[in-house]
């Protein structure tokens, strides 16, 4: 593969930053700002699409601000604009009343925790955060109280909403097995925001999901970033096309003998072939002569974004040899990876660290068998010690799925070597940085989304209850769970 075949764009620059900088700089730069994205090279150029139910153009790019996703009467376009500027959902006025959350301890994840703190939320956004002595609650605010207050939790990788609570054929949309490589499948086209599993995880404090197509096919589709409220995906989505989900190693191997890949090497070879095809497609797409210009190919269009670095390849990989295969592939095609799973990560820490790719670690309590047989409760602690940027996930287990609540996975990590703050960061601010959404979520700071979780005790303790959840300023849950 010749590098010059890859189109150099603004986002290529971002990719280089991603590759050269350490984790901290990386965190800020993993995802280019929306302004950069506008100029990002994409087949068909920047497209304007309309948000469902509105005539407002929605950017379907990487970073589509939530405020552009509102639903409003089409007869009042100027009012829509007004609301859009405020970042306001015209949902239920009652639910959207101003909210004040008082916590005996408020973990803002932006500095030291605040004893006897207050979080004020106005509309969808946080208005102020501070000690109760200096942060007065204005009249008319609905007051919620809790022992411990944290930012709304972020599940850095899940299938919730595609994989439903029942785990029955009719509610499982996370894996399409008809072909090995199907990056054109979009999570947003199958996300069910009304599945009871979305309610379940939200009731335990989870407000943001990076969800989508599951491991289990070489390239299974795309992921999306979405809030756990409101149920309408168009309103809840943060990024409709977040990453392209790939699997290497035994997890990519087809269960049918006549259907490749049959081995791990074949999986890598197939992906290489496809990426080379993509670079040729990119070249042909750039031709101005309509006779020579390639016609649109949805699949290669997505892989082109992987090639130019504007959409990371989320590679689920567990064994050490497969982790190295993923890094080899990334080096060959200059890909931006997010490593996912990585049960054997402690065996190849130096290589992962050198790559500067962020890691979404397997759920702490993931089943250890076959390719995950060597996973450890202490993987997170080992990665932390090595100075890697990582987040935790609930992941996906097909048989009697149990790792569905990222709060519990972080609890397991906290009990096995991570400090309380580190574990909480892995499902709040660190996850937000890794996903490139830290401008919106992940910490309690004025101007960020009003996403808050309330607990009646230490959140990781088994016997503590989540007693309240606020998503984008809406009090969604108050029943202790």
């Amino acid at each position, binding site marked *: 593969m010749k590098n010059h075949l890859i189109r150099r764009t603004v986002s290529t620059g971002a990719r280089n930053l991603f590759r050269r900088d350490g984790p901290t700089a990386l965190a800020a730069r993993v995802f280019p700002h929306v302004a950069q994205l506008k100029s990002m090279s994409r087949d068909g150029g920047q497209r304007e699409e309309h948000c469902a139910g509105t005539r407002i153009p929605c950017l379907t790019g990487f970073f589509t601000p939530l405020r552009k996703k509102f639903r409003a009467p089409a007869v009042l376009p100027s009012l829509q604009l007004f609301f859009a500027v405020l970042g306001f959902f015209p949902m239920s006025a009652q639910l959207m009343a101003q909210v004040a959350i008082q916590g005996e301890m408020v973990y803002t994840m932006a500095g030291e925790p605040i004893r006897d703190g207050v979080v004020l939320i106005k509309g969808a956004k946080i208005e102020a955060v501070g000690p109760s002595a200096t942060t007065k609650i204005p009249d008319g605010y609905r007051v919620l109280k809790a022992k411990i207050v944290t930012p709304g939790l972020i599940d850095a990788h899940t299938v919730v909403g595609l994989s439903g609570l029942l785990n029955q054929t009719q509610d499982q949309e996370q894996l399409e097995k008809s072909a090995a490589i199907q990056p054109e499948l979009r999570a947003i086209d199958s996300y069910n925001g009304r599945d009871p599993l979305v309610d*379940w995880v939200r009731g335990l404090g989870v407000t943001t999901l990076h969800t989508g197509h599951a491991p289990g096919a070489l390239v299974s589709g795309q992921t999306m970033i979405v809030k756990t409220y409101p149920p309408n995906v168009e309103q809840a989505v943060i990024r409709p096309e977040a990453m392209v989900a790939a699997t290497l190693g035994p997890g990519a191997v087809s269960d049918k003998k006549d259907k490749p890949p049959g081995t791990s090497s074949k999986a890598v070879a197939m992906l290489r072939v496809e990426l080379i095809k993509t670079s040729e497609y990119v070249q042909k797409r750039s031709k101005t002569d309509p006779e020579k210009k390639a016609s649109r190919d949805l699949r290669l269009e997505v892989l082109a974004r992987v090639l130019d670095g504007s959409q990371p390849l989320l590679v689920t990989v567990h064994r050490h040899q497969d982790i190295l295969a993923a890094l080899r592939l990334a080096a060959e095609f200059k890909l931006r990876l997010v490593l996912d799973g990585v049960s054997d990560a402690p065996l190849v820490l130096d290589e992962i660290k050198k790559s500067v790719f962020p890691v979404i670690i397997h759920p702490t309590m993931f089943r250890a068998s076959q390719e995950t047989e*060597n*996973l*450890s409760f202490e993987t997170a602690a080992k990665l932390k010690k090595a100075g890697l940027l990582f987040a935790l996930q609930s992941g996906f287990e097909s048989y009697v799925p149990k*790792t569905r609540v990222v709060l519990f996975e972080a*609890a397991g990590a906290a*009990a096995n070597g991570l400090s309380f703050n580190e574990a909480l960061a892995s499902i709040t601010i660190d996850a937000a940085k890794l996903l490139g959404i830290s401008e919106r979520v992940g910490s309690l700071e004025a101007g960020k989304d009003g996403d808050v979780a309330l607990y009646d005790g230490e959140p*990781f303790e088994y*016997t503590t209850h989540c007693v309240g959840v606020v998503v984008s300023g809406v009090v969604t849950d108050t029943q202790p769970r």
Partner: protein
Amino acid sequence: MRAVTSENQRADFPPATRGFDEPSFTAEHKSVLLAVILFAGFFPIDLRAQEQPLAFTGVQIIPISGDPIDQGVFVVHRGKIITVGPRGTATPAGATVRDVSGKVLMPGLVDTHSHIGGISGGDPSSPIQPELRVLDSIDVRDASIQKAQAGGITTANIMHGSGLLMSGQTLYLKLRDGNVIEDLIITNKDGRIAGGMKMANGTNPRRDPPFPGTRAKSAALVREKFVAAQEYHDKAARANGDPEKLPARDLGLEAVVEVLDGKRVVQHHTHRHDDILTVLRLQKEFGFRVVLHHVSEGWKVADEIAAAKVPCSIIVLDSPGGKLEARDVDWKTGAVLEKAGVLVGFHTDDSVTDSRLFLRSAAFAVRAGMTRAGALKGLTLAGAIMLDLQDRIGSLEPGKDADFILLSGDPLSVYSHVLETWIDGKKVFDRSDEKDRLWATGGHGAGNPRQTPLCCFGTWEDMR
């Protein structure tokens, strides 16, 4: 040897209300326990390891049979518990004394439903196979057994899966470090190997013929088998020892007769409220002793379960669902059943949940309203009762087996770790030992069976 019972044992099949004995922990009871000590000869225990008494002092003791003791004294000798007392209780002369202040000591955990040991899910050739013994398929070197030790589990009921209506004879194992399966078995006073009978209803056993296609068919097939066993039993009884009149041996019916006689407890997988009631209906008809397992919708029929005096072993998962029948599984099940007066225990169903996280199940039950004492009993003594082993294990009392765990803190806290696991006075897990620690935390090599053929990874010198 024919396993059918003799005439004088027969009388009638046990009444439906015959349940499970809960120890009362009176002085009289303790004398019974003393009698049990006399049966120590039945246990395949290596006593050499503990010629000297071993005393733990300064430790918080959770005996289960009584209130917790702060800074207590706990002494074991020759595989048995000899002292459970408050601070200042004398330790025997010559005892090795360990000050474990700040730690917590409680009975070894009893997992009433597990699939560790590398066993198969069940034989798929037919739906009712009581003649199958899980005994014949356990790999004592499987890593899952070491992991269960690391989770503080000292006794486990190992069973085939729920894909059959009756998938075979289960095995109550002490998770000793054994070389062969016989090192781990528990022998009952009558000489039989301790174990139950695994049964299941609901959707799991529903398949193409010869498996049932509906719930009613499932019940009918099971009833037919029990009726056949009754007749087999009666025929044997009428033969009165005459070899000419005895029925031809039938391994399956022999095992079901043990069930009808109450010698072998049915360990019954069941989720939905109507399936639970079906089990109770069949139990009433045939009088077998039964423990309900999973009981996802048990909270809907708690009073009926309580009235039938049937214990429940429940599973705790992170969310409802995962399968259609578990749609309404709820953390409150333990609390609701406890309140209704049902004996409640827990299980891992390993590998459905991880044996190393067994304590977590009880903690989640407490989260949803179960009493702390009830939940801790559910991990220990309740399980022992469900396995008919309450005279030997499940609580810390003089005369009982020295099966206990040492914890770094509150058993219901996520931050607590099992530091040591002891069975029959022998330490089988020690978190401070690097090799043992691997089983507790996972990591490279933790997936391999104990004592692999390649004894020493990475040291080629040793392999020459």
